[in-house]
């Protein structure tokens, strides 16, 4: 694999994803409306009940709208990762994935290209959300917009890699609704996106344990700290480790002939 070929292929994959993204205006709209509804309706309703006392990374009393923003950024990336996964299942059904996988480049590189193209799309969505949230009066430090960029790339890669892994085990688009019930909702609600860990601990130690174990919690905390120019080492380790783990598992599972193990048998449809 030489650099110019790799760059050309990478750019080709990213360019195709962008073209598809801009053609699907509803997708962009949905990506923005979803977190904005949470921010404007849900967070406003809980504002009175759920203010936060001083705790890292915040240096003062924090309103619930401010607290919830990193969780909603995570939500944007989580949905985008799953959307990419859906698009890969679609690509596989339509045959486009076959074309990609037969390109003269290593499979891991082709999948990484696809993954990072999805991350780029999620960055557009996140920054659009942040600026619109600002227009709604949710002010976060502007320099945090810069600090959070590398973190967004990493968390986008982790959630995209998870989507990639899921797309390799989901055989039909019809089965995709299960992802909503068994991946997106549990990951989002059993995390620190909506409530801090200590709040969870007040109601259940088990819930607190699950939230602390959930990699999405660590992605949200990494973003939360970065938005205030602070570094969260443990969260970085968990997110980095999960990114590598999910990606390696996805590359391994993207071997089409692996689906025909002796126990399963049967030719492809």
């Amino acid at each position, binding site marked *: 694999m030489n650099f110019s070929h790799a760059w050309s*292929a990478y750019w080709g*994959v990213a360019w195709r994803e962008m073209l598809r993204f801009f053609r699907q205006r509803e997708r962009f709209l949905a990506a923005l409306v979803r977190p904005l509804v949470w921010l404007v309706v849900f967070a406003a309703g809980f504002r009175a009940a759920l203010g936060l006392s001083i705790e890292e990374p915040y240096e003062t009393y924090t309103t619930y709208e401010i607290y919830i923003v990193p969780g909603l950024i995570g939500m944007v990336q989580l949905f985008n990762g799953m959307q990419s996964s859906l698009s890969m299942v679609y690509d596989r059904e339509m045959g486009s994935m076959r074309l990609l996988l037969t390109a003269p480049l290593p499979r891991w590189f082709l999948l990484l290209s696809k993954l990072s193209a999805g991350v780029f799309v999620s960055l557009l969505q996140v920054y659009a959300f942040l600026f619109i949230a600002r227009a709604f009066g949710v002010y976060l430090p502007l320099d945090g917009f810069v600090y959070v960029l590398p973190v967004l790339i990493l968390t986008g890669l982790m959630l995209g890699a998870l989507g990639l892994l899921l797309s390799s085990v989901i055989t039909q688009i019809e089965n995709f609704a299960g992802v909503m019930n068994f991946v997106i909702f549990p990951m989002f609600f059993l995390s620190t996106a909506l409530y801090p860990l200590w709040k969870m601990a007040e109601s259940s130690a088990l819930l607190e344990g699950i939230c602390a174990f959930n990699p999405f919690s660590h992605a949200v905390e990494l973003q939360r700290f970065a938005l205030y120019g602070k570094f969260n080492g443990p969260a970085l380790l968990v997110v980095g480790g999960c990114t590598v783990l999910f990606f390696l598992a996805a590359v391994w599972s993207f071997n089409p002939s692996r689906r025909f193990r002796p126990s399963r048998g049967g030719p492809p449809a």
Partner: protein
Amino acid sequence: MVAVAAVNDATAALAVDNLSFSYGNKPALSNVSFNVRSGAATMLLGLNGSGKTTLFSLLTRLFLSPTGSVTIDGVKLGAGNAALRKVGIVFQQMTLDLDLTVEQNLRYFAALQGMNRRDAEVRITEELTALDLNDRRKDRVRTLNGGHRRRLEIARALLHQPRLLLLDEPTVGLDIETRRTLVGQLHDRAGTDGVAILWATHLIDEIFEDDPLIILHQGRIVADGLTGTLVASAGAPDLSAAFVHFRQAGA
């Protein structure tokens, strides 16, 4: 296996040696070996389920064979990717992006092949002109009919000037007239461009008398040679009868 004047050239565009593959416990290909030469369309004839698509999946590295070897234009198909650069593929299932235009689909493929933009634009125009699609280059693929889509897939497969073109039943679903035109165009391309074509089909009327022919039956090659010679050696009046003869002999 009957081998009559089979292509047995050390410099074959494609050399397949002792390839096998199973879906679980069910063998799909057993010790398949053959060569494909440049400048001709080698027809791979077999019934549905005979192993043609499995063979193509192995030749394009979608599946990995536990045995045997594949050599494309002198380069072994293995862990590296050099051999795949020499291959153009038209899959049985359509693999175009319906939401992109004709030229966007071609640009995407050119990028995957590592072609620089200037070369890609030249080749896109050449191939679209050759396949009579140049006036549709700005149209979304969704608006093309089946025949145009197939021609676009062939243009795409030839874009990077491969040494080997793999066609997996490329005329499936096309009307008689479109199919006849496409069959003629592809045979012509083999002659004029010198590209080696391996063409999987179950349609006997796509095969010309002087085409090299490989008959695949139940995952094994039961005949390999020039079509006319194979028909004569089977003592059959035509290829249909010869096909039945070789299948029965090889069963």
